[in-house]
């Protein structure tokens, strides 16, 4: 089933993207073309094949990544807030939620 404009509108909503009518007209056929290209994977027989889980090499899989649970220095509130568009009273301020 080819992907259409209303699919693209729904996807944009899921992805928190506001797209214009003009963008929709450009994106819909492009994304449809890419989706039909990737559908060539349907011709590969993958029965019984385990899906890869991430990018790790066998050595990476064996590496233990736990560490002692000790407190280490971090950026701190002031630095962490310094790049925020609207910090207030030590918090990130956002427009009303409801």
């Amino acid at each position, binding site marked *: 089933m080819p*992907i259409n404009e209303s*699919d*693209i509108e729904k*996807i*944009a909503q*899921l*992805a*928190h*993207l*506001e*797209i*214009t009518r003009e*963008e929709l007209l*450009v*994106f819909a056929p*492009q*994304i449809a*073309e*890419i*989706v039909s*290209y*990737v*559908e*060539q*994977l*349907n011709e*590969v027989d*993958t029965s019984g*094949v*385990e*899906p*890869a*889980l*991430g*990018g*790790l*090499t*066998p*050595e*990476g899989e*064996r*590496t*233990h*990544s736990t*560490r002692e649970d000790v407190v280490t220095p971090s*950026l701190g509130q002031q*630095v*962490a807030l*310094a*790049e*925020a*568009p*609207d910090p207030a009273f030590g918090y*990130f301020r*956002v*427009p*009303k*939620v409801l």
Partner: protein
Amino acid sequence: MTNQVLDIAELHERILNGESNARSLVDAALNAAEELNPSLNAFLEIDRKGSQQRADQIDEAKESGALAGIPIAIKDNLCVRGLQTSCGSRILGDYHAPYDATVIERLLKAGAVIIGKTNCDEFAMGSSNENSAFGPVKNPWDLARVPGGSSGGSAAAVAAGIVPVALGSDTGGSVRQPASLCGVVGLKPTYGRNSRYGLVAFASSLDQVGVFGRRVRDVATVLGVIAGRDTHDATTADVPVPDYAAALSGDVKGLRIGFARALFGEGLDPEVRTAVMGALEIYREMGAELVEIELPNTKYAIAVYYIIATAEASSNLARFDGVRYGFRAEEADELRSMYRRTRDEGFGPEVKRRIMLGTYVLSAGYYDAYYRKAQQVRTLLREDFRRAFESCDAIITPTSPTPAFLIGEKTDDPLAMYLNDIYTVTANLVGVPGMNVPCGLSSNRLPIGFQLLGPYWSEPVLFWLGDAYERARPFTERPPIHA
């Protein structure tokens, strides 16, 4: 005498014996960057004051680390404390990183001097640099052409002789392909070789920090400095880091080099085919054994890649929401519309396209058909390479199907653009290292390169082979735009 023709070891030697110093190397690099940037658009930020101060400190303290006083350029998706990190996007606004990426920390400890941040495709998504919100980088070999992408600014800065080495990131070829189009060496290491802490994430199971250099030996030196386990990145592997540069002997006798005939067929530019076949012949003359191999599933690699990479990107880029850092759209009186407007105004078209594609392949009802299927074919690709490396020590392929194309040539056709990555994406999907080595110029004087691929952790073999090729056929041509 400038720093433009010497390698890092030679520059290091000159600093140690007092013939040169960090300040003069850094000044030369800064002057070249400022002079050439109006034509190349390779740098988004040049840190004259900071890098001069740093150079003076190194000279004063007589630092002797492996990279003491060596000027280096950094792709603008790696965090360097105090400098901008835009990822070539508007959505990061005026963001200045409050910390150093681990690879940056290690470079600085070895004495490297960061002269600036380089332009790239937005969030490293692209093969031409045309997706940067700050205009495309131009190829120093022909200003009407693309430098490749996404790390095009770093590639162009090295090709133009501004810096001897630079860092980029490679998710599907973003170091190797621009290296090929600009005529420099470019390495994507084994997945887990380098820390990704402080690299802005695009597709976490594919991303790896890579190195550009004019010479293989320089790339080997820099990898030796930045590689290794990092507790801030759980995907770095506990595998020892050898002295890469020390092992380069030039002798390739007995090494077995694989090539897959199917990768030299349709879609490959005839001049690229001739040049890469020529490189195979040179290895044979030097005593390597050529072995024919098969990689039956590589024809599906682009399809697998554009499912997995976009799926991971749609998740990673959810963090850009106008709350904690960067740009926020004005005049949104409610949270959800603030998110949507911020992302609409902040992201460029290619990033939106990929976020939507990734959202689609992960959405309810489609997950098994696309994402799970792609991960299964990824397993088959890994099997292909495991089997191939039973009969050879490394594989040679072209790096890019064509030399540099014209700016604007492929911008209206995203799928045609994706197909540029046909030779490079497999290394990321499988996790093996890959390196571009320049091997000639086309009839209209555009660089051509070949790609060496090896098993996991075989960077020493890639350096060994690449260095031997350089000794046999040094690539000494310089682009018209050059320091």
